[in-house]
């Protein structure tokens, strides 16, 4: 488990009023943007539980939209994002729901543009977040590390094939999580790394037999 550092305590510089409901919302939007990679044309946010109830007063809706449009947690433009030229080319809407199965501060983000994508995430406290789902895959992305997400066929040797490529690039792995739907079915690998990766490694991984999908998600600045 990652322990708090000095910077965690005396930072971040952020737009208020709440680390979980405002800064966390911006970071969820921003990490969704890193995952989506291109400019979204349409976004539907569904806010759950506390996010739904107190979201307007905390600017959670503004934070989510600002994040997905690329603004950072300390950007003063978040407050007026709905009336800003930054948001005029995106069609956005918000739904508010209760669901006791979901985290108290939770959101679904449906993005449309050059592709459709569904992303779920939670704001887990003190501005920290977790993206929990991308399309049909369960993931766990904090945005604190550069991360490689791989979907592949569950079979022997896949982890070592990938980690060998990282070793050859002298890239250190901070954490590695594997999961699968069932034996021999679709599996996912989430690798957090300590240094940025060049794009040729990603295409090398894509070329491994029975790898279906690879994406590289850059970490959040702060």
């Amino acid at each position: 488990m990652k322990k708090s550092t000095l910077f965690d305590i005396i930072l971040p510089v952020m737009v208020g009023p709440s680390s979980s409901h405002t800064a966390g919302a911006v970071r969820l939007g921003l990490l969704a943007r890193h995952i989506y990679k291109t400019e979204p044309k349409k976004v539907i946010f569904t806010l759950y539980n506390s996010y739904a109830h107190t979201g307007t007063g905390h600017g959670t809706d503004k934070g989510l939209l600002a994040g997905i449009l690329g603004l950072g947690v300390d950007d003063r433009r978040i407050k007026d994002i709905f009336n800003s030229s930054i948001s005029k080319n995106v069609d956005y809407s918000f739904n508010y729901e209760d669901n006791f199965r979901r985290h108290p501060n939770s959101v679904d983000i449906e993005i449309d543009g050059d592709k459709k994508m569904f992303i779920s995430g939670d704001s887990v406290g003190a501005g920290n977040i977790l993206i929990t789902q991308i399309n049909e895959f369960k993931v766990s992305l904090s945005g604190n590390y550069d991360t490689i997400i791989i979907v592949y066929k569950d079979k022997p040797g896949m982890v070592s094939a990938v980690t060998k490529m990282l070793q050859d690039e002298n890239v250190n792995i901070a954490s590695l999580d594997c999961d699968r739907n069932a034996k021999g079915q679709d599996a996912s690998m989430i690798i957090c790394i300590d240094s940025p990766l060049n794009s040729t490694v990603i295409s090398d991984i894509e070329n491994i037999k029975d790898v279906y999908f690879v994406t590289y998600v850059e970490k959040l600045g702060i």
Partner: protein
Amino acid sequence: MDRNISTFKQLCEYCVSSKKNIYEIAQYNMAKEADISENEVRNVVMNALKSMKEAISIGINSNELSVSGMCGDDCYKVKKFYNKNHSMFGPLFQKVIEYALATSEENIRMGKIVACPTAGSCGILPAALISISEEYKYNTDDQLNALITAGEIGRIVSAKMALAGAVAGCQAECGVASAMAAAAITQIRGGNIYQILNSSALALKNVLGLTCDPVAGLVEVPCVKRNPFMAVFAITASELALSGVESKIPIDEVVDAMAQTGALMSPMLKESSEAGLATTKTGLYYKSLICKK
């Protein structure tokens, strides 16, 4: 150097044996953790300090209300009062009250603040540290050392418990901010390691059991007004400690007590707004107004 300091006892022993200050150890460890130089660590902290001052200078001139309309013009009222009446405690006290409100109100109107340690408690440390630095002309390096010292106090508390109202109530947010502020000003006034830790322990003990029961679930009532109170407590704790007053219970044990108290507190009093001020007749009235909007 020891990079695994997770208790105040370890920190104290290490300060004494290495003859180093808290901030020296903290900035060294942060540099190692982030793989940057100590100078870069200080630059990041400098940016935080600048942002704190900026929030004060913007917030102190605003009376814009928050989206809910519950808060936002208290600093304006206090400033107006002090224009005609002086604080009986003198100009420093005026500044502490104004700066805490200015920062905290800047937070609720979606202005830019430094979450230190949290957004709801963002006015406490800046109010104490910056007003004292201005009144007694401490230089920027002194202020950075004080802020880093405060951060190390918060970091060690957070190694034992989450600094979140939802986990342990307001004691874990405004209470810890008050303990950090106490450490900052004890450091800047030349207090030794024992005095710094005592000041934090005294500040924390003062607020054990403090609930988190915000009206309508927003970081406004009672959070905003709690900031100036906590900043004043921090100065009280610091002056007691500088006089040689000791916390009979060592700070590690105070933090344990706070974690235990937090665990024993009903979830209804931990940021869920299901009890306390949030469910008073008037609290519910405000909630109904805000929900209609």
